[in-house]
């Protein structure tokens, strides 16, 4: 009974805590990826915006897809969605519940990337330095229009000779960074409020349907696991019987071809069983060769009748 409880708890806790663990690991991985990524703004007028926005938006898509791929439940959900109806009705509420839980978990790492990017500020400075109004900043007010674009595009590159001691460039940088951080905190605030409202208000709508959907989605997961477990157990026994049958038929073949009488009583009973009548080098070699060249058929119906 204790073992049953332990195994059951393993199954129960396994899928949820494994999924939450994967979700957290992906979020940490996205922070680590961002800090180790060497952001290098091209500082050219046409390329800045593409690079900046690309770094801000493409990795989140990748992380989202990774989150879907690594989640075992997405396969289970797809299978449940696409299976033929057969003798079991399909409950759309269950599929919707599974889909929303998968999406929520997959969204965490991309959101973390975007928020960290915005709070750091480099991407937005790179992307939007060329779109600044030069009149707002003292150092750029007197420069010609053609040159001002080039100068503004170089703002993210602090090591450039022109930019090193230029206070206006620092002012542009600071201004953009301030907006970037404000945007990052605002996005975080909106998402947290949404998560809070979702958790708080969910029991107000259709709690009974939610409990049912959650139970049956858990059931589908457990059923899949038990089916795989049963098939594994079955193939183990199948293989065992198949091999036993093979050894038996080998032993009979050897008996037919050799004239030596089987030695009685010289070895203990247990050893005789394990050796299965194969007792010298030639026999073993023949057995191995036959196993490779002529594997037995996948049919133990004769064996079970013995």
């Amino acid at each position, binding site marked *: 009974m204790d073992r049953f409880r332990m195994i*059951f708890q393993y199954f129960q806790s396994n899928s949820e805590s494994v999924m939450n663990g994967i979700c957290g690991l992906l979020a940490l991985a996205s922070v680590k990826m961002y800090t180790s990524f060497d952001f290098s703004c091209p500082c050219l007028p046409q390329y800045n915006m593409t690079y900046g926005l690309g770094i801000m938006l493409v990795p989140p898509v990748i992380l989202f897809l990774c989150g879907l791929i690594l989640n075992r439940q997405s396969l289970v959900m797809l299978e449940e969605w696409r*299976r033929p109806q057969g003798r*079991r009705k399909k409950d759309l509420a269950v599929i919707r519940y599974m889909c929303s839980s998968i999406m929520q978990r997959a969204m965490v790492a991309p959101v973390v990337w975007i928020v960290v990017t915005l709070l750091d500020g480099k991407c937005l400075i790179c992307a939007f330095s060329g779109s600044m109004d030069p009149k707002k900043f003292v150092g750029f007010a007197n420069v010609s229009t053609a040159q001002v674009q080039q100068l503004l595009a170089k703002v993210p590159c602090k090591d450039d000779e022109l930019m090193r001691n230029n206070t206006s460039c620092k002012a542009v940088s600071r201004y953009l960074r301030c907006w970037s951080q404000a945007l990052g905190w605002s996005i975080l605030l909106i998402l947290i409020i949404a998560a809070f409202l979702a958790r708080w208000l*969910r*029991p107000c709508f259709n709690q009974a349907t939610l409990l049912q959907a959650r139970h049956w989605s858990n059931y589908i997961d457990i059923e899949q696991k038990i089916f795989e477990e049963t098939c594994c157990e079955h193939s183990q026994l199948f293989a065992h019987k198949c091999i036993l049958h093979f050894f038996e038929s080998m032993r009979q073949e050897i008996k037919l071809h050799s004239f030596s009488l089987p030695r009685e009583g010289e070895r203990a009973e247990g050893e005789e069983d394990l050796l299965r009548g194969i007792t010298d080098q030639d026999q073993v070699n023949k057995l191995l060769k036959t196993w490779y060249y002529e594997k037995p058929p996948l*049919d133990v119906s004769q064996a079970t009748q013995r």
Partner: protein
Amino acid sequence: MDKFRMIFQFFQSNQESFMNGICGIMALASTQMYSAFDFNCPCLPHYNLAYGLGILLVPPFILFLLGFVLNNNISMLAEEWRRPQGQRGKDPAVLRYMFCSMAQRAMIAPAVWVSVTLLDGKCITCAFCTSVPVETLGNASHPHLSQGEIQRILARIPCKEIYNGQQLIDNEVAVRYLRCISQALGWCFVLLMTMLAFLVRSLRPCFSQAAFLKSRYWSHYIDIERKLFDETCAEHARSFAKVCIQQFFEGMSMDLVAARCHLPRKAPADAGEAAEKLLGITDQGTMNMALKSWHRCKPPLHLHPPALPTGNGWAGEGQPPTHPSMPRRETAAYYSWV
């Protein structure tokens, strides 16, 4: 009985210590977030106040809500609040207790952020640098400077590398002044929070202790009951799945036997457990059909009673309901290979 006590204590201590652990982790995370966050004062007259106060107040609000979101009890509280009365009365004191205990835990991380921010001083320096008393600290009689110009100069105080108002007011003096005020505010805030916590803890037994004990007991009870219900449902789902799959395999092999018009093969008495565990599937073709049938035509969620002497393994010709009624669940739970 001992096992029950152990399980009960595990649940009891687990929920509280788990929540306290989350609370502590969030407090640490808030200090880590603050030190990792690159504070970047805009040094422009109207933006400073917004930025400084924003960094002081928005993250604590986020942390407060996060404290609620991460607390599993919030859905329990909402559920208990919104459930229909049914046969069990609702006690508002229990709901109030649950809400207060969640709110207290959620307040810790924001308080830590605000204290750390104030003690560090960058936020207040950024937000209030334009309100520095130039008359007392600096040289207010500096001529030819309009009010707007003075504001712009003062706004650059936090950004030392572009500060150009040394004649008006020394940068070091202004920063030290603002920092001193910020740290004083920070320590007062910490003192206030600690005194509040002390008063709440020490004065609570003076007011309706009996009602408090009752609310605490019943809120723990609701939590434990919900966990046990989830556990029982999962246990049931496991038994259900096991029986369903076993019946599927049995039905499969009996179906094939009927199709081949052979007499049903009885496993010989001495075949042992192994032959039984093969579930009647003994060759590749049969196994392939079983796997195909599992995908194409899953068995209905309707377990038939075990002792059916007929050769027809499939029961329930019509569409069975996906949610079996209570009495059948009892049967399924007991008919298990464990």
